[in-house]
């Protein structure tokens, strides 16, 4: 049987080519992601190894339940005093101990100009530390010049200096929390063995200067070198004994492994994300496979009948088809894996050319191979099961029939199943949205999947009347070509429906994302309607320095600046996000979605919907425990949007709980009658001196920026869906190509009675266009519907308006029609160039 299966694939590989391409494309997507994330993991694990290479033991803040390490705005606290370093140095087996301190700041390029551009202010981060002068501690070796000896000296890594335009002796500017600081470049260092910094800038200054900038002479880390022959982990344990609460000692090796593991965990999410898209692509591909095998089974009905007549059992036939599917799967998965690997290799070269060395060696990871084959085989076999079962029911008598056509079984069963699934899907979505259950997205997501399959099944029934309804119109416009095209769609409703459905899924997802992002834009617009602020302040470095706010407040024409801070506290032992605002001014600048307004806070706390879900209500007492102190607050109101912060407090409480908390957003309100444009220039000029990386955006600019980000999101997701759409179009081409082969005799006959080649081509093009547009329209209806459902499900996050993305929908429809014509090009060409006599004599 296996031999027969292989022979059959080999005998007519053309009809399986597009199927193989579809599978390969999906597999390639997965393989490329695995290869890239693997290389990225390799690159970073090398970086982590080098960071901790020389240091035997690291003493640092213990990762605690407050989850500080996960808070991107949390400053690294100076938790070790000079005495702690001495204590560690005195532990048995310790050769030397160094206090390490990181300075938050950005090394500015030599030709830096303040630009008030959020994008330009970003870029690769700077890592700035105090200089120990010991390569084992610094992880950097001086290779030119000298180390920083006096407080106005600095060293940079060898790649950053030329990149930023500095040579030894030049003045280097660094934007820090206390303003722009200037240094003289006295030396160049190499990080680790090969200065692979993944694009970051590395800088070292003296201990005293770093303490001055941070405003704190404590250390956030102690690096330990053990004596020769001492066991690092034993020393680490000994150090642990004497350490203050909340800190830990860990060996450099363990630390590197821990960081690599943490990074790999992040990469795993990328993998999952990419596999999701690969699965979508393969799901669409499955429709093509179903169609291909269905058509192949039809074409080979007589062959199968003959095999049945000479004694092949139905089961054997089924096995044979599945084996054929397996052969296709293995071949195309292999191609997909190779293409994916090569694609990843090419991409890594391009990326590294643009942003420096960030990947390790790009090798094909075993994950990529395993997932590639598993996904490819699974999808192909599952998709081939129905056609295989169909083949196994072919009676030997079919061998003796004159011509092979798909059995004209009524669509009743298909409709019942399809209707039931559609209903089930809708019910699941409605339940998810309106029953207020725990995790609404689970029933909504599952409902959507079921709905897709249900609609696919029903599409066969919809397509028939539709084709008939269109027949009159198509006949009027295109005459006999249009009539024949409508007949062809109508002739094999299942096949046409599956083809259209493949496209439907891709378009549905696009329309869904477009609906979602457009609604997000409406949300942004709405938020700005209740806005009274003249400018929003942004910092590319994360938190906004206090000093910068003082500069703004000190300018003429500024009425007040109101800021939002963020931190983490414990509530009943659980980490809880707390937002800090000034109740008196916050509500004046911005109309928050809360009940009542923030100015009614009255020294208490506001809670968000997640807290309400957890059982808290207005009037309750909250016991909050922060790094700096505790506070018991009465809940005085509710904040109605989920996802910003769970508990809101005023600035006094914020300081009491958190001490200095990072400010994540500030709004500037001008005096009445001040011209905002002139004021923006004035404020930026004032900031340029000490805080050149800060950005001031007017509400209009901010809204535009937010919309740009949303469009970027739409772009990225659309690009990821591109593979699915290409596969769907291959599906249209594939179905047409196989249908053309199947109709060879008929086309020959049409040509024989005088139909011109041009007409044949047009007939196929119309068929393709109708299927493509039909799939697109169905997809858009479903996509907008599901998108609206999703927006509704996320109401807690502030979504109020569902916006239908009409412009996108129009674009998709036009694109579908064009794509239909493109997909029909090859099949139409094939059909038109057929030799009349050969076509008529064509056998099966």
């Amino acid at each position, binding site marked *: 049987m296996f031999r027969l299966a292989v022979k*059959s694939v080999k*005998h*007519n590989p053309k009809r399986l080519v597009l199927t193989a391409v579809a599978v390969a494309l999906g597999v390639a997507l997965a393989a490329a992601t695995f290869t890239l994330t693997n290389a990225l993991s390799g690159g970073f694990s090398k970086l982590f190894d080098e960071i901790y290479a020389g240091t035997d033991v690291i003493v640092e803040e213990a990762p605690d339940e407050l989850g500080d390490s996960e808070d991107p705005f949390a400053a690294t606290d100076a938790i070790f005093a000079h005495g702690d370093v001495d204590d560690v140095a005195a532990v048995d087996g310790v050769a030397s101990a160094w206090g390490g301190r990181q300075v938050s700041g950005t090394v500015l390029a030599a030709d830096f100009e303040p630009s008030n551009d959020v994008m330009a202010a970003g870029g690769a981060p700077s890592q700035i530390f105090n200089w120990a002068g010991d390569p084992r501690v610094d992880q950097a070796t001086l290779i030119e010049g000298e180390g920083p000896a006096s407080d106005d000296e600095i060293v940079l890594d060898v790649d950053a200096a030329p990149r930023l335009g500095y040579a030894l002796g030049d003045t280097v500017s660094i934007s820090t929390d206390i303003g722009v600081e200037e240094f003289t470049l006295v030396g160049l260092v190499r990080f680790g063995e090969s200065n692979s910094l993944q694009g970051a800038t590395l800088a070292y200054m003296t201990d005293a200067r770093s303490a001055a900038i941070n405003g704190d002479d404590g250390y956030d880390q102690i690096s330990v070198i053990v004596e020769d022959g001492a066991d690092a982990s034993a020393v680490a344990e000994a150090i642990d004994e004497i350490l203050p609460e909340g800190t830990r000692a860990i060996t450099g090796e363990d630390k590197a492994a821990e960081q690599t593991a943490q990074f790999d965990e992040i990469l795993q999410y990328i993998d999952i994300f990419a596999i999701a898209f690969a699965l979508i692509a393969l799901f669409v591909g499955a429709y093509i496979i179903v169609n291909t095998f269905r058509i192949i089974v039809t074409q080979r009905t007589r062959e199968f009948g003959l095999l*049945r007549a000479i004694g092949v059992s*139905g089961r054997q036939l089924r096995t044979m088809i599945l084996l054929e599917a397996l052969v296709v799967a293995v071949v195309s998965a292999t191609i997909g894996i190779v293409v994916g690997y090569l694609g990843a290799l090419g991409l890594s070269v391009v990326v590294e050319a643009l942003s420096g060395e960030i990947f390790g060696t790009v090798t094909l990871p075993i994950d990529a191979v395993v997932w590639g084959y598993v996904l490819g085989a699974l999808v192909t076999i599952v998709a081939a099961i129905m056609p295989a079962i169909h083949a196994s029911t072919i009676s*030997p008598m079919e061998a*003796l029939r004159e011509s092979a056509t798909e059995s004209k079984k009524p669509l009743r069963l298909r409709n019942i199943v399809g209707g039931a699934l559609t209903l089930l899907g809708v019910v699941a979505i409605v339940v998810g949205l309106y029953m207020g259950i725990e995790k609404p997205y689970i029933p909504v997501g599952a409902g959507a999947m079921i709905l897709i399959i249900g609609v696919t099944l029903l599409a066969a029934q919809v397509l028939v009347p539709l084709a008939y309804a269109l027949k009159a119109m198509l006949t009027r416009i295109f005459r006999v070509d249009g009539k024949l095209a409508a007949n062809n769609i109508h002739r094999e409703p299942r096949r046409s429906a599956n083809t259209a459905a493949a496209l439907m899924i891709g378009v549905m997802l696009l329309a869904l994302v477009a609906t979602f992002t457009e609604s997000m834009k409406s949300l942004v617009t709405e938020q700005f309607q209740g806005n009274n602020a003249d400018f929003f302040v942004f910092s590319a470095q994360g938190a906004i320095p206090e000093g910068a706010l003082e500069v703004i407040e000190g300018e003429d024409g500024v009425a007040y600046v109101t800021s939002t801070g963020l931190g983490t506290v414990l509530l009943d032992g659980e980490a809880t996000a707390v937002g800090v605002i000034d109740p008196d001014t916050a509500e004046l600048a911005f109309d928050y979605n809360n009940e009542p307004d923030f100015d009614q806070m009255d020294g208490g706390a506001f809670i968000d919907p997640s807290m309400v879900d957890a059982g808290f209500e207005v009037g309750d007492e909250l016991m909050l425990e922060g790094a700096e102190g505790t506070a018991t607050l009465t809940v005085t109101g509710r904040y109605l949007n989920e996802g910003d912060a769970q508990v809101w407090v005023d600035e006094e409480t914020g300081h009491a709980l958190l001490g200095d908390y990072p400010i994540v957003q500030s709004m500037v309100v001008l005096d009445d009658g001040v011209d905002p444009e002139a004021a923006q220039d004035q404020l930026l000029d004032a900031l340029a001196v000490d805080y050149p990386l800060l950005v001031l955006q007017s509400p209009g600019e901010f809204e535009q920026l937010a919309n740009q980000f949303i469009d970027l999101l739409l772009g990225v997701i659309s690009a990821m869906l591109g593979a699915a759409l290409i596969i769907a179009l291959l599906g249209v081409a594939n179905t047409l190509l196989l249908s053309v082969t199947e109709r060879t005799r008929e086309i020959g006959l049409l040509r024989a009675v005088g139909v011109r080649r041009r007409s044949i081509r047009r007939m196929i093009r119309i068929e393709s266009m109708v299927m493509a547009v039909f799939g697109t329209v169905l997809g858009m209806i479903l996509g907008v519907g599901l998108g609206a459902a999703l927006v509704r499900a996320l109401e807690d996050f502030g979504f109020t308006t569902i916006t239908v993305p009409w412009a996108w929908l129009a674009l998709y429809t036009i694109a579908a029609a064009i794509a239909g014509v493109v997909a029909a090009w090859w099949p139409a060409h094939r059909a038109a160039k057929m030799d009349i006599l050969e076509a008529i004599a064509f056998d099966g």
Partner: protein
Amino acid sequence: MTTTVTLAASMRGGTKDYGHGDAAVRALDGIDVDIATAEFTAIMGPSGSGKSTLLHTLAGLDRLTAGQSWIGETEISALSEDKITQVRRDKIGFVFQAFNLIPSLSAKENITLPLDISGRDIDPAWFDEIIGILGLGDRLTHLPAELSGGQQQRVAVARALVARPELIFADEPSGNLDSRSGAELLGFMRRAVKEFGQTIAMVTHDPTAASYSDRVLFLADGRIVDEMREPTADAVLDRMKQMGH
């Protein structure tokens, strides 16, 4: 009917209806028939008289509406689809009028297909003998599409013979061939019966083809209306004329 000869196949009260209600057609109308072993039986009759239907139901390709049929001792009208498939595989060979071969397999692979399916070994001597007699030696590696119609039919006959089935059914095997190719094919089938004791039942329209057989059954309107032993082409033609063919 004689009961002394062993029977390769037989049918009692064989009835076959197609369609329902007004569209119902009775293709076989209570047929009793015996196919003796080592005999070459021809089935003749006007178009639509039920010849193909008789052949198909005898061979277990199709089921009777009523009545019983046997292959050897096995009553196939009582068997499940799977069991019938097995009987076909082990005991029966087929030659159809057209589309006899799997397009993706070479001539040789087509011929050995029944053996491959049932996992039996090829008897090389027997294979060579068949190939030699049928004159297919230089065509074995060709695909069906590369063979002439006559060659394709000879490959089909070779395939039917190679597994030494108890019974071969052929439906107008020479229908698509010119008279010389047809005569060669029929001559070979007759030799298979005479020299190797093969049993063959063949449907044909052609009195000349029928004259190669030992016995001709005449069908009309789903019933057997006559039978002729040691037929000649002229006698068969006369009989057909009487039936208004």
